[in-house]
């Protein structure tokens, strides 16, 4: 049977992608941040999954305002890279995992999670920056990917409860798949940041650190945190952190914390990153 072996959380700051693409990762500004991912790249070499379910949000890159799905799933063979206004990132095309993805989308819909089904999808920095951070700059990505875009841009976003429950449903669905697959679930975005208005540049390190603690130890309470608290305490874009709850839900009741990293700033953002594994 397929099994979920780990959860990864990481910020997905676009400037981080640009730093990778322009070979600026050794510069003084960027070096400490990339150093925080060295452990993870090594860990990932030893623990490369067959499939990564990557929970992310599109940033007006593929989805306009014509259609705004709350939860969607890419079930195609491959996903091209978006041009976000600067030209597409020069990274390999992302290969899909259609067999598992169709099983997952169908299972989730039957479990009352009304996923939007995407046979065509181009992916943006929300998905590719985490891949660059975990895999570096290979000619071909070492894992297949099931993109799971979530609306975190337009209020109302899905509730924290809904996100944690979706993660739990993903866990059940993966375990019911008849195929011997090592699957990881990645929750991306955050941590505290605000990139608009007079309050732009907001960072809240104590709140971010508490969020990471609670994600590990107390997700059943963390799920009830209202959108308003994310927006006030972690900035208007900090609400992306609800996507980490989906990852956490997919890992089961108890987890081991393999790794944690926190760094300010990357561009306008507090970078947070964790590797968690289910406790058997």
């Amino acid at each position: 049977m397929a099994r979920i072996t780990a959860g990864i959380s990481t910020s997905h700051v676009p400037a981080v992608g640009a730093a990778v693409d322009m070979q600026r990762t050794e510069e003084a500004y960027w070096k400490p941040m990339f150093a925080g991912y060295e452990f993870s790249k090594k860990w990932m070499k030893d623990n490369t999954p067959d499939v990564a379910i990557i929970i992310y949000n599109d940033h007006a890159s593929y989805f306009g305002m014509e259609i705004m799905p709350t939860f969607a799933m890419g079930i195609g063979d491959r996903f091209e890279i978006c041009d976000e206004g600067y030209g597409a990132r020069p990274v390999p095309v992302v290969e899909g995992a259609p067999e598992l993805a169709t099983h997952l989308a169908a299972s989730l819909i039957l479990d009352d999670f009304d996923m939007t089904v995407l046979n065509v999808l181009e992916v943006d920095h929300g998905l590719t920056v985490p891949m660059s951070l975990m895999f570096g700059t290979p000619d071909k990505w070492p894992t297949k990917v099931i993109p799971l875009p979530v609306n975190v841009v337009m209020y109302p976003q899905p509730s924290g409860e809904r996100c944690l429950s979706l993660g739990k449903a993903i866990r059940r669905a993966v375990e019911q798949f008849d195929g011997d697959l090592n699957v990881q679930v990645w929750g991306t975005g955050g941590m505290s940041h605000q990139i608009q208005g007079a309050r732009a540049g907001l960072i809240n390190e104590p709140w971010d650190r508490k969020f990471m603690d609670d994600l590990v130890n107390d997700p059943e309470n963390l799920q009830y945190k209202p959108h308003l608290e994310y927006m006030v305490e972690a900035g208007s874009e900090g609400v992306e952190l609800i996507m980490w709850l989906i990852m956490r839900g997919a890992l089961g009741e108890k987890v081991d914390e393999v790794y944690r990293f926190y760094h300010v700033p990357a561009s306008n953002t507090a970078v947070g990153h964790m590797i968690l594994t289910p406790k058997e």
Partner: protein
Amino acid sequence: MKPDFEQFKDIPGTTIFTIEKARQGFWLNQFCMSLREEANRKRFLGAEREYLDEWQMSEQQKQAVLDRDFQKMLDLGGNVYFLSKIFASEGLSYVQAVSTMTDMNVEQYQAMMLGGGRNVEGWRSKKERGEA
């Protein structure tokens, strides 16, 4: 559950992009989406007014784009991820564009970020700040 759009209005210096704002800003944001294509970026930067006139945007929205008044664009229903296509067309970074919405210049803003970012203390509530 009845939606509460009012709950966000006490956050200082912040415009929450609600489903209502999305309706108001639909064409402004659609215009921004068109700048994902290099040919459109060239055409827009070559003749901004003419390009904007091809979209069903309000005159205020068009003027805010011409003025690169990002706060005004937010007020009129724009969302920063959409608006980023405008500044990306000109090769500007998020930090460069975002800083224009604050009371700092870009150097001061970058220095604030390097110093750990804007502290949330004093920035939680308009009422607390005497702005409401």
